[in-house]
């Protein structure tokens, strides 16, 4: 047990050493900057009424935008970290030094750090915009926590897919295209009936959004923002999604481990 832990620690340390000069943190930070600019533009025209539900609005808008930005961000991050192994032909050397399953896990963890940085950054951005635009809605910690959890969990499932694709592809165009396609699929899935929406993993950012609009109650011509509300977090659904995500990860890892170098 002690040996396993020590080997895992060394493998993680080596993974961090590999990332020197790679500046991967620019990827989540760049996407976060674009996202911040995107959501902050309409906020300049906020009325006093809008400011009373400012955080709800931000959670809602950011959940929609996440469907576009997060798959792309994850595709670029995974590709940037896996490509160094593919280009440098390193797998056949690494597998003589560490187990291929451990390599797969550690690489995933290294990528997941940037996802967590992004999710945490989003929470900070929402708080920061709240302060900058003087949102009058009181800060409730629970939706912030739920938002962080939802983005991280959905992102982790998407990342596991990108992770496998990037490690299995000699050319990183394929995983990048898959990320881009996922972005559009996630966005358009919101216009599909809920049953279809549930089948598309890229669309889960909106499914786990902490705020939403009950479209059935919005009269024609009315401002839909007036019908925005915090939603109960679907905990059983979230746990089921996370469990399926873990199984999916193990399945993907199995595919990778069968690959001979």
């Amino acid at each position, binding site marked *: 047990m002690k040996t396993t832990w020590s080997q895992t620690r060394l493998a993680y340390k*080596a993974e961090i050493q590999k990332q020197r000069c790679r500046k991967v943190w620019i990827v989540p930070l760049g996407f976060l900057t674009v996202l911040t600019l995107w959501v902050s533009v309409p906020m300049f025209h906020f009325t006093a009424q809008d400011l009373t539900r400012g955080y709800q609005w931000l959670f809602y808008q950011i959940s929609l935008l996440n469907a576009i930005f997060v798959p792309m961000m994850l595709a670029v991050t995974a590709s940037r970290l896996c490509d160094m192994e593919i280009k440098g032909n390193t797998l056949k050397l690494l597998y003589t*030094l*560490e187990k291929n399953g451990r390599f797969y896990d550690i690489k995933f963890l290294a990528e997941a750090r940037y996802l967590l940085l992004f999710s945490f950054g989003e929470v900070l951005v929402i708080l920061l915009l709240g302060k900058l635009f003087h949102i009058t809605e009181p800060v409730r910690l629970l939706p912030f926590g739920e938002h962080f959890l939802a983005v991280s969990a959905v992102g982790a499932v998407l990342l596991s897919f990108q992770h496998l694709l990037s490690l299995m592809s000699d050319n990183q165009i394929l995983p990048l295209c898959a990320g881009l396609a996922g972005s559009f699929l996630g966005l358009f899935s919101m216009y599909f009936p809920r049953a279809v929406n549930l089948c598309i993993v890229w669309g889960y950012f909106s499914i786990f959004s902490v705020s939403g609009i009950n479209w059935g109650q919005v009269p024609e011509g009315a401002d839909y923002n007036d019908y925005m509300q915090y939603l109960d977090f679907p905990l059983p659904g979230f746990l089921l999604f996370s469990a399926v995500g873990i199984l999916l990860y193990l399945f993907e890892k199995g595919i990778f481990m069968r690959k001979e170098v």
Partner: protein
Amino acid sequence: MEHIITTQALTKDYGSKPVVRDLTLKVPPGSIYGFLGPNGAGKSTTMKMLLGLVKPTAGSIFILGKPVLEENRLELLKNTGSLIESPAYYGHLSARENLQIICTLKNVPETGIDSVLRIVRLEKQQDKKVKHFSLGMKQRLGLAAALLGHPRLLLLDEPTNGLDPAGIQEMRELICSLPGKYGMTILVSSHLLSEIDQMATHVGIIEKGALIFQGSLESLHRHSRARIRLRTTDNGRAFRVLKNAQFPVAADKDGHGLFLHSTEDSRVLQCGRLLAEQEIGVLRLEEMQMSLEEIFLKLTEKQASL
């Protein structure tokens, strides 16, 4: 321990296609074992199986006297350095940073980096990004990585592939110096006979996945027995006369002469006398040595186990 590496009936099939068949390797300690065979003969697959990168279909592998199993593979490989096919490297990092990663994964102190850089003569380029290295420098870096932690066994798969003549010479000298200086055993594969001839102490020849020769380089050279080539006024009759007199004789393939598989003076003298008695004139008499190249071709053509 009699052998550093032993394999027993090692076999690898891809689908119905056999790539390695019943391979029984025996690599003596302290040797440079040249693993020779044409392209596609199964050398790389064998080396990958030794390192656990490819699962054998059948057979067993013993390294340093212990059976290689999934549970102890990495433990055994701690005493092994490898360079398989093209060199492995992180192009965005310097040579030193690349070696630091290997040190971390091998759990050996970074103090060894200076020494291996010196061995492969990369001390001056250690801070240069590896993506700017030539192929020869990348190969040397690969060798440096393999040498970290002072392994007892080195597995080098075609280490001179793609190198220019100077690079080949340099790599060869480096490999030859390692067993003497550091007590290592080296298994080096190549498809070039001349290369193995200049480096190895022992040879294994593989063809179509099967080992067709294994032994010391000396014993391979012994196969290159000298023989006498004869040209006479009537080669056909000369062949019959010598054959009837129990001489070890064979007809030349091109029909312009015959071979006497003996260089003993007394036999040559008897042969000359016999032909003279039969009034067959001897036009040419030359001693010929079979080159290693010819032995190799003969072995690989025959595909028969010696």
